């Protein structure tokens, strides 16, 4: 069982570089509690709000989540957390359980890759391609966080041209279920998901 803290940060524009470094330091400090970096994405230019960063932090068990949460709020991680706070306005986080991940690695794409994040109702998750070539790299079920509850969030690696077709297409994509929300994310060069 793996948990993921998925956090959307409203970053202060002048502090964007300092923010990224502060997150790296924060992730390094969290490693002592068993946490591992999951991803560091920026919302792609032209697809959403400015200076918005999406991070993922993996935790191996519920006890590790508790130690991490207490440490960030009041303990050894609070200074590193406040260093991140100093570079952002605020953040919204959700806690996920990892339902499935591709173990065979992502296929090669021509040029840089983007990550597309979609959130769908659990009832619609059956329409996801779980076993075929279009299956997402990561499937997450929401445990805590803001509405809507009982949803599934998927991350899939895509080529920029396909993403553009997806965003501007006039007909539904045969491989993408209608989502409640679609985010286009550009990985940082140190992000474990790239």
């Amino acid at each position, binding site marked *: 069982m793996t948990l993921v803290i998925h956090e959307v940060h409203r970053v202060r524009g002048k502090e964007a570089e300092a923010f990224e470094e502060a997150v790296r330091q924060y992730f390094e400090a969290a490693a002592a509690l068993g946490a591992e970096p999951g991803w560091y994405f920026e919302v792609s230019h032209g697809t959403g709000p400015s200076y918005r960063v999406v991070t993922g*932090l993996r935790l191996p068990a519920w006890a590790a989540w508790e130690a991490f949460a207490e440490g960030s709020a009041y303990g050894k991680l609070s200074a590193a957390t406040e260093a991140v706070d100093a570079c952002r306005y605020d953040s919204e*986080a959700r806690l996920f359980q990892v339902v499935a991940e591709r173990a065979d690695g992502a296929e090669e794409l021509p040029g840089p890759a983007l990550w597309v994040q979609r959130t769908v109702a659990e009832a619609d998750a059956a329409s996801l391609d779980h076993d075929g070539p279009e299956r997402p790299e990561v499937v997450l079920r929401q445990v805590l966080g803001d509405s809507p509850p009982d949803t599934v969030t998927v991350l899939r690696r895509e080529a920029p041209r396909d993403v553009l077709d997806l965003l501007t297409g006039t007909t539904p994509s045969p491989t993408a279920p209608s989502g409640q929300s679609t985010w286009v994310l550009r990985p940082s060069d140190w992000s474990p998901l790239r």
Partner: protein
Amino acid sequence: MILLHETHQVVPGALDEFERTYWDAVAPELDRLDGVAPLWLLRQRQGIEGELVIALTALRSGSALGAYTEWRQGKSGVAARRLAGELSRRCDRKALLAAPWSTLREWDEITEAAAPPAGDAPRIFMEDTGWPYSVVSEYVDYQRRDYFEPLQQWAKSGHALLKLWGFFLVAPGTGRRPEAVFLQEVLDARALERLIGEPEVYDPDTFPGSYMVRGLLYRDQWRSRLLVASKRPT
């Protein structure tokens, strides 16, 4: 201890059915889970957000949150999912962690907090949610120094109007940061008439004016909700 905080903006007209479903089908299930205890079901029938229910559930540990999650996702959790789905327009779920100096930090405090009051008068709660712009640890310390400790002194005098049940940060990874929550019980409902009816004029040198004036160093945005505790049927 972890406090699970679930805010349901209820479908208009469904508040009574929501409460019935919670007490009849959800709370007995929670009672059966080890390390999980339903604490309070707080409701608002009228307010800016319309019909609203906050379900507070005490969890002994992170492992208990795991057990709760597994239960909620399984067959036995169907009624809990109905509360969040069919009976709610919106449902936000977060975990709260009490500050080291706060009450409601230890599991054995739950018994007293959950005990029904002796009389028939409704229990009224005020939940304050604040969003500091200062360093979070400085804000937490300010709340201890300028609010929690004066309130404790007030309580000793026997004339307290409020009982502070706890001060919490939203557990990192489960909601907004920075965000903090006060859970307070109103001991004298007449004090609410003054609170909502009189203009806000603060004496910066005496409590509570001192708390309000100095608080602007740390935050100026918060939200207060007046909530009534739903009585568990006996």
